[in-house]
């Protein structure tokens, strides 16, 4: 009988897209997550823009700064003064400030580190998100899939507003979902074509993608092994066939499962 990990837990992976592999470029996606004091989960996912020369640095610095800021706020503020819904926006602000400082010190243009950023905070009651640029957050709430936060509508495939843009605050979107969330997926646009159906009304989560993925997450017995297998999954031909972009997927299991699944990848 495998020993399941007690929820909540988080795991994730980033892989280079085929174009970056061909050109010998680094993966421009990055992610960071942390469970803070058993009560909170914090996730940041970023996708550096291909047109920016140091976007791999931008995405890495952004996710690290965002998670660090959330951790400081959660651990350093008394609970009666803590507005949880504001924390994802503060995570984005911290990332932007970090990029501004780096640009100043290292004599870069801010836009040289252009990146998208999604920040998520959850506890056993609520999920809060803030997002600039594309990628998405999907939750399973009471058995149903919900697109909590998705790409801002942009007509063309190669248009996006990064956090380094001066109008980033006007372009950020935030969301929250309360009670009953079981699973969470946070991902960059390299996974969008695989996981979201695009309709005239907008995007919607694709059940035949998320149900197996969340089912796999529920059956995890080892985070390290899970991350390795998730990398293999993201790099697989099935997922890469329609997107040559870098891909990042971070999964969180919010509540304990009674599932005795023993599947592995």
């Amino acid at each position, binding site marked *: 009988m495998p020993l399941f990990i007690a929820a909540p837990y988080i795991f994730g992976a980033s892989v280079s897209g085929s174009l970056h592999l061909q050109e010998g470029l680094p993966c421009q996606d990055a992610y960071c997550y942390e469970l803070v004091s058993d009560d909170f989960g914090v996730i940041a996912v970023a996708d550096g823009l291909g047109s920016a020369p140091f976007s791999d640095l931008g995405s890495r610095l952004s996710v690290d700064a965002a998670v660090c800021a959330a951790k400081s706020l959660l651990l350093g503020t008394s609970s009666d003064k803590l507005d949880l819904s504001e924390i994802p926006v503060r995570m984005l602000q911290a990332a932007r400030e970090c990029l501004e400082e780096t640009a100043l010190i290292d004599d870069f243009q801010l836009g040289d580190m252009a990146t998208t950023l999604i920040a998520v905070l959850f506890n056993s009651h609520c999920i809060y998100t803030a997002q600039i640029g*594309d990628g998405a957050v999907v939750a399973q709430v009471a058995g149903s899939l919900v697109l909590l936060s998705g790409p801002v509508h942009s*007509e*063309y495939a*190669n248009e996006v507003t990064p956090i380094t843009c001066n109008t980033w605050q006007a372009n950020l979107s935030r969301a929250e979902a309360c009670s009953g969330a079981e699973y969470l997926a946070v991902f960059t646009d390299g996974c969008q*074509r695989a996981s979201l159906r695009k309709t005239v009304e907008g995007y919607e989560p694709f059940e035949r993608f998320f149900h197996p*993925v969340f089912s*796999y997450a529920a059956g995890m017995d080892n985070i390290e092994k899970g991350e390795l297998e998730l990398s293999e*999954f993201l790099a697989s031909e099935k*997922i890469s066939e329609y997107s040559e972009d870098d891909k990042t997927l971070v999964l969180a299991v919010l509540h304990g499962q009674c599932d005795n699944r023993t599947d592995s*990848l």
Partner: protein
Amino acid sequence: MSVLNEVEIANPQHPHCATLLLLDTSGSMEGDKIRQLNEGLNFFKEDILQDDLARKRVDLAIITFGEGVNVVQNFASVESIPDMQLTAEGLTPMGYALSTAMDLIEQRKNEYRIKGVDYYRPWIFMITDGEPTDMKPGDPKWTSVAGRIHEGESSKKFLFFTVGVVPANMQVLKDLSPQNRPPLKLKKDRFREMFSWLSKSTRKTSASKVGDIVPLDNPTGPEGWGEIETA
């Protein structure tokens, strides 16, 4: 059996890169020009097919204007388009041709939206050796067509490129073109180089990723195929 093997893909299709060629086949193109245009067009198709990603993503349409305006090829994948031998005859109904091109682009984008297909900003690429015979600067048709081009370009509905082949009326083409992208005058016998540039630019666009600004090679350099008339 891994549970992740059960994953299915929501949108199993590549983003599309719509490119519309608007080709002058009026009587004045007769001879060497139409021969070079045909050779260049077929070279363009072959060149796109050499690129794995562009082959899957470029969606090509061809409209000719000469003896009427003809959609000789509605949007389709390049590999499904047969080789063509266009012939030159008739006048230059450029106004109607431009309206037809912009209608076709809108129609295609609508199909993409309905089918949930991601797409890049479409290109309209016009090649002509004359001036419109179905409209004149300032008349209602001209005002409507030129206004639609300028509005379409500024609101990012499409990218509009014009190439004039001697003896094209470059001033008329300039008035039709968006201010930020003046018409280029094709250097003598450079049809193939022009189509090579177009193919390379289309391939670059179709391989671009989110947020990419696609830098195009300068066609007016010393080795380029075009020049900008500043007079």
